[in-house]
């Protein structure tokens, strides 16, 4: 069995809330407390105000397909998975997430398709958000 490339938590800021929730199959998003707007990927400050007033909020895990690409030439560590689909999903909350698409054929995808989060188990205790047609 070939191993998946794992995320390295806390590599640039404290992202433990994201990864702990991921292992419970909950997708966390940062929300700017002052404007109520969401941002992803997580950042140390609010994109909107520059302040540190950001909270982690559980996302509904739903969105629409914004774009996708079928990868034939793998990023290192992913050779065994080719071909695989990478995509942007525009979440209901207004943030955009880069993800893999699962449980679907590329030929059946259409722009704006409703998508929902589908958790991949990359390793024991490491879950990662992918998306599938809703």
């Amino acid at each position: 069995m070939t191993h998946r490339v794992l995320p390295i938590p806390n590599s640039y800021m404290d992202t433990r809330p994201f990864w702990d929730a991921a292992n419970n199959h909950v997708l966390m998003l940062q929300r700017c407390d002052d404007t109520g707007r969401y941002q992803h990927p997580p950042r140390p400050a609010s994109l909107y105000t520059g302040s540190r007033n950001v909270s982690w909020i559980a996302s509904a895990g739903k969105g629409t397909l914004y774009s996708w690409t079928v990868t034939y030439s793998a990023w290192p560590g992913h050779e065994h998975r080719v071909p695989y689909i990478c995509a942007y999903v525009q979440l209901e909350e207004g943030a955009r997430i880069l993800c893999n698409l699962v449980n679907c054929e590329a030929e059946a995808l259409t722009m704006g398709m409703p998508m929902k989060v589908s958790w991949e188990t990359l390793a024991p205790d490491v879950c990662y958000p992918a998306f599938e047609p809703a």
Partner: protein
Amino acid sequence: MNANRDVGIVAYAETKITLRGGRSAYDLAADVFASILDSTGLEVSDIDGLAVAETMSETANPFWPAYMADMLGLSPTWLESSGLGGVSAIGGVARAVAAIRAGLCKTALVLSTDAQSSKNQSEQGGQRHEFQYPTGLRGPTGVFGLLMRRYAHLYDLDPRALAKLAVTQRNHALLNENACEKLRIPLTEEAYLDSKVVSDPLRMLDSVMVCDGANAVLVASEEVIKEKGLAKAVYPTAYSELTNYKAFDSSAEITETGFSVVGPKALEQANLSTDQIRMFHPYDDFLIAILMQLEQIGFCNVGRGSDFILNTDLSFTGDLPLNTGGGQISAGQPGLAGGGLNLVEAVRQMFGEAGDRQVENPANAMVTGIGVIPIGRNWSTSAVMILEQ
């Protein structure tokens, strides 16, 4: 930037682009440095400013520009580290012009050199270890696959237009002895359309091949030009740059780029319209980026890029000569020195030294740069420079 001819580009140089050539970025830099001193007759001590682009091959060294000054025997009163990716060359020129006008130096070497295909020390980190690498997105290639699909959804994208860009630039590379030999083979539109899909819908021939190489331009004040009797000069009359377009907007349309801002701004500064641009030397990491720049700078309307390309002669004898040395896609991308490739070609053309591919009456040139490809949004830095006689 203003229309005064008080600071000019007085020399250019570049090495041959090689694939895994094995020479270091320092060694490649020595070639272009010696060439510039030779073509201008200047001494090492005449150069009092140095801008060095960041690299992939030496990036582990935080003191890289100072090391380069030492290697070249320079004692600059202005030393700049240009970490703008593909914008580093024209960005370096713009900063050199500002430095010269501010009295920080008089004669600045704007140097770009990278041995990325021989040695890559970069670790781009940030959010990538958590939110990008585990998905397997193939870096810039994957990002542009996503971008192309999005563009094709919103507008008409005709693959024959991309094929024409590929073939036009390849034909130019066939006339360019500095282009990477591996790329100097004729290309047909059929071969482009048949080429391997790497990140659907992006094909291998839509993108650059990473190589090694160095290039430089010398920027000098009017006073120095007169004093040293420098025979040739072209003048940056406009420069506009923007990083992280729509930073505040998590829903920003990824096909909308900073060029929609910096293109019109640069044209306004130079008091020129796109009709008056004689040559176009756009940053070409990917063919779709050329099409998008044509639209957003204003050569045609957004969504009409394919038509514009199919109906315009982009060869060096045509109405809008495009990357007359082949661009990075057909000459090779010398790592992070790539931003200087098209700049040097523009200067070469305007000096009348382009030989078999000389553009007639090269009155001006627009040179652009793109720097850094993040995720979830359009590219990071967009920049446009206009050069005039």
